[in-house]
């Protein structure tokens, strides 16, 4: 956070450009001492951050208790919601779904595993064989919270062949 020397702007303007005036909200009071501006700017940015934190922690009026509980537990388990751009201030918070894909040629096994995972509030989709699983895996959304559970033999190809198809060899981790 350096103040450029010799530019057309005065120290205060240069510093505000450097920090980002949007973080400050209303214009800070005029002063000539750069240290005061720095202190005021830092304090203003901190105040804005704390305000965002509070608005996230406080349950938005439009969210019911159950949804808020899920969102709050996600914020404790995963990335803090308050550190993501655009959330909290408007009360719009989103939970990242945890996805499970089950690949098995036995419908009974698929149904049984689906019930087990859904009982844990996990989102489940399934496939009857490896090829279908790979296809669904490519088309369905997946994210950092996705796991695929596969059988060894899935009709058209083995689970291992399906695993090879699901990820390029270069990205395999051992």
């Amino acid at each position, binding site marked *: 956070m350096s103040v450029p020397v010799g530019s057309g702007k005065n120290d205060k303007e240069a510093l505000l450009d450097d920090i980002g005036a949007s973080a400050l909200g209303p214009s800070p009071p005029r002063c000539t001492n750069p240290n005061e501006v720095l202190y005021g700017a830092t304090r203003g940015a901190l105040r804005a951050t704390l305000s965002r934190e509070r608005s996230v922690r406080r349950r938005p009026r439009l969210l019911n208790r159950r949804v808020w509980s899920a969102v709050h537990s996600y914020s404790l388990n995963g990335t803090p919601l308050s550190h993501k751009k655009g959330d909290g201030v408007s009360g719009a918070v989103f939970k990242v779904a945890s996805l499970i894909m089950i690949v098995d040629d036995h419908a009974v096994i698929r149904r049984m595993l689906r019930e087990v*995972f859904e009982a844990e509030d996990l989102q489940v989709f399934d496939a009857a064989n490896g090829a279908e699983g790979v296809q669904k895996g490519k088309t369905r959304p997946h994210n950092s919270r996705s*796991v695929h*559970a596969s*059988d*060894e033999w899935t009709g058209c190809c083995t689970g291992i062949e399906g695993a090879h198809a*699901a*990820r390029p060899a270069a990205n*395999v981790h*051992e």
Partner: protein
Amino acid sequence: MPHVPLLMFTNNPGGIVEKEARSAGISAVISRSDTDGVKQLLIRAKALLGLNGAGAQRAS
């Protein structure tokens, strides 16, 4: 889909299968015939999803 963790839930978790599975990038092979196989699968899946309270852990 290269970064999606994979679990194998199989009747034959032999040594060769497990070795092949690891080379294919499968995080864990869980025996279906074990009495607590389903429970193990659930625990592993939740660990990979980071839902066990301690963050995501790669099953070994």
